[in-house]
């Protein structure tokens, strides 16, 4: 019996989304088949890895992580340069300092940092609010205006604030990250709402909501697989936006990335364990279809890039 390669016929394709400008611009998306199945489709762009920086010092980041970044986190600009030197394709600036429970910085301060960072690096920039839906509307508006012309991705637009955040992206020619909560229908719904208000669907990057290895990873994994199947097999235009996974924030709060070996000898050394935790989470997300990863540990990001290279 000869083997006839059982190929799928895909009717849909993922949109291309370009971030940044000039020689270091990065394009993501474009896949015409399920992840890495080169025998039945093409993958013009490899998944991009963004390293995360913040507008405040990472005091609440775990020791292992802070050590890996060293003194670079003293200022956002220095930190961004450090990430670019350490192989980041993209810088993801999280304006955590604006959160009312953090430093409650005002939108102008945040915008200033965003502009400085944008000027300091020539790789693309992702600008994230603090996750406070209400405050993020003002913060992202200001930051989007301050980085006009840089073709950033700004977010996250969520159900509660998508109108203002999308308007800010539109007015300043940026791309948009839209996040829903681990649900295929909610993800689609948000993209529909955005297009209904006139936002170009080919400028959206979808965030299905990430989770860490061992802590709900399987939910994100399957939601992403289902989104990709709908995009490719059912040719659903509302599911064909590239996917971003914001994994660092989830990974670096679980016990496996925090607990020293002395406390859990059966888990082995903390440094390797923590790094592997983020790298394995990353590999799971790209296997399920992620087009962009937001990570925290430069070493883990390097491992993610290695496996991506091996998969292309």
């Amino acid at each position, binding site marked *: 019996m000869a083997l006839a390669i059982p190929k799928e016929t895909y009717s849909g394709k993922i949109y291309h989304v370009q971030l940044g400008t000039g020689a270091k611009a990065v394009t993501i998306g474009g896949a015409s088949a399920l992840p890495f199945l080169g025998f039945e489709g093409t993958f013009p762009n490899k998944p991009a890895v963004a390293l995360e920086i913040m507008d405040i010092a990472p005091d609440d980041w775990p020791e292992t992580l802070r050590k890996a970044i060293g003194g670079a986190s003293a200022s956002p600009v220095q930190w961004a340069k450090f990430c670019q030197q350490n192989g980041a394709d993209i810088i993801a600036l999280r304006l955590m300092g604006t959160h009312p429970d953090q430093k409650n910085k005002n939108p102008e301060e945040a915008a200033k940092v965003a502009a400085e960072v944008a000027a300091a690096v020539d790789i693309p920039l992702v600008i994230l609010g603090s996750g406070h839906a209400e405050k993020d509307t003002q913060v992202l508006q200001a930051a989007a205006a301050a980085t006009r012309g840089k073709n950033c991705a700004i977010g996250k637009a969520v159900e509660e604030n998508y109108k203002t955040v999308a308007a800010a992206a539109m007015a300043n020619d940026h791309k948009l990250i839209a996040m829903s909560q681990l649900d295929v229908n909610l993800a689609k719904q948000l993209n529909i709402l955005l297009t209904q208000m006139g936002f170009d669907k080919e400028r959206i990057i979808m965030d299905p909501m990430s989770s860490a*290895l*061992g802590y709900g990873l399987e939910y994100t994994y399957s939601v992403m697989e289902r989104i990709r199947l709908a995009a490719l097999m059912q040719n659903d235009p509302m599911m064909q936006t590239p996917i971003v996974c914001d994994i660092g924030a989830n990974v670096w709060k679980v016990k496996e990335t925090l607990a020293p070996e002395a406390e859990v000898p059966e888990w082995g050394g903390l440094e390797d364990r923590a790094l592997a935790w983020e790298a394995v989470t990353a590999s799971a997300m790209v296997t399920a279809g992620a087009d962009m990863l937001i990570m925290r540990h430069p070493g883990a990001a390097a491992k993610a890039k290695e496996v991506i290279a091996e998969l292309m």
Partner: protein
Amino acid sequence: MALSGVEIFKYLPKTNCKKCGHPTCLAFAMKLAAKQASLDSCPDASEDAKKLLGEAAAPPIRGITLGTGDKAVKVGDEICLFRHEKKFFNPNAFAVAIRASEAGDAAAKKIEAVKASEIDRVGQKLRVDAIAVADEGGDAAKFASVVKQVVDGAPGVPLILVSKNPAIIEAGITHCADKKPLIYAATAENAEAMAKIAKEKKASLAVAADGLDALTALSEKVKGLGVDDLVLDSGARKAKDMIEHLTIIRRAAIKKNFKPLGYPTIIFAGRDNAVAETVAAAVGVMKYASIVVLNSIEKWKMLALLSLRQNIYTDPQVPMQVAQNVYKVGDAKENSPLMITTNFSLSYFIVRGEVENSKVPSWLAVMDNEGLSVLTAWAAGKFTASKIAQFITESGVEKNVSHKELIIPGYVAVLSGALEEKLPGWKITVGPREANQLPTFLKARA
């Protein structure tokens, strides 16, 4: 290929004798088609019918057991390509390779590591499942001595014997002949000799070829030589080849019922760098590898890989959950602290583990929220003040504790006011957000 009731009916005796417990042969055929009956119930079924139905009923991917006894592991026997379609049933086995050159101390260390590899995660015991002894340089005596070292050192742990030389396998298998090892591997060159050993020793046999066409041919050939328990290796080592080959194998088996590829698969994830090896193995875990062979099994590596495997192989329809109850942690007394969490296994075991770490005996009230985590249950309206109050009141916990203080998870601090209203006389204390802060929190109170 599934048969319809009418197709099956054609092969039944058509006497309607009712001995099967069904009114007619047709009714019985319908039950068979729906897999609600077994052909064994019809005493008059012909050999033809048995053969046909047996083949139709065979799973698209054969299930194979490595080893014997309580450490045996079953792999294969999967029915879908994506876990959300149903679920993945038989978790891949992890094996560590011990090379013949590691005979002695290095091998002993790995053997000990395998024996000490068991971890408890979310109520499941997970461990390195098997040991692969790999021939190097063709020294049969040396190979056999390592096999013996493993059999003696790690009794019961399933074995994979790695050599393409039948004479070497022959030497090694004498030490584990009755333990259903997996022989790796039959190739186009040695197929007859390897098949002969596998049949004689009732071992499973891996078939290794370069590429999928060669693999198909070899699998058919070895099956034709009378070996049923096969494991497939297409030679894929690079992550991309792994995903592509394993996907094609799985699809061909499940969607096309292509028998030559309807077997479990084996991959060798070895890399010079341990993190790189972890990540490569992870790709195998997610994309259909049934056996993943590693060069080394550092504790952190296995923690990550076993956790990933557990994630991927959980039932997507039913979250892992524990029974609603007030659990006693340590030697809790009537004045011990009382905490509440949800019945999502992950939440329960994390919290329980941290309470145990604190060494402060406690009561842990676990409320049935259909297996949702604390925040998810809260967001879904299943962990509300009134529901918690009702649960506490009906749980009978007041018989266990003499005090009326309930510690709630820090993430649902907003519930404390409403809870005090709904539970008159109770003091609600907001605990830390993350469970890993519980030891400090509990010790400070004790």
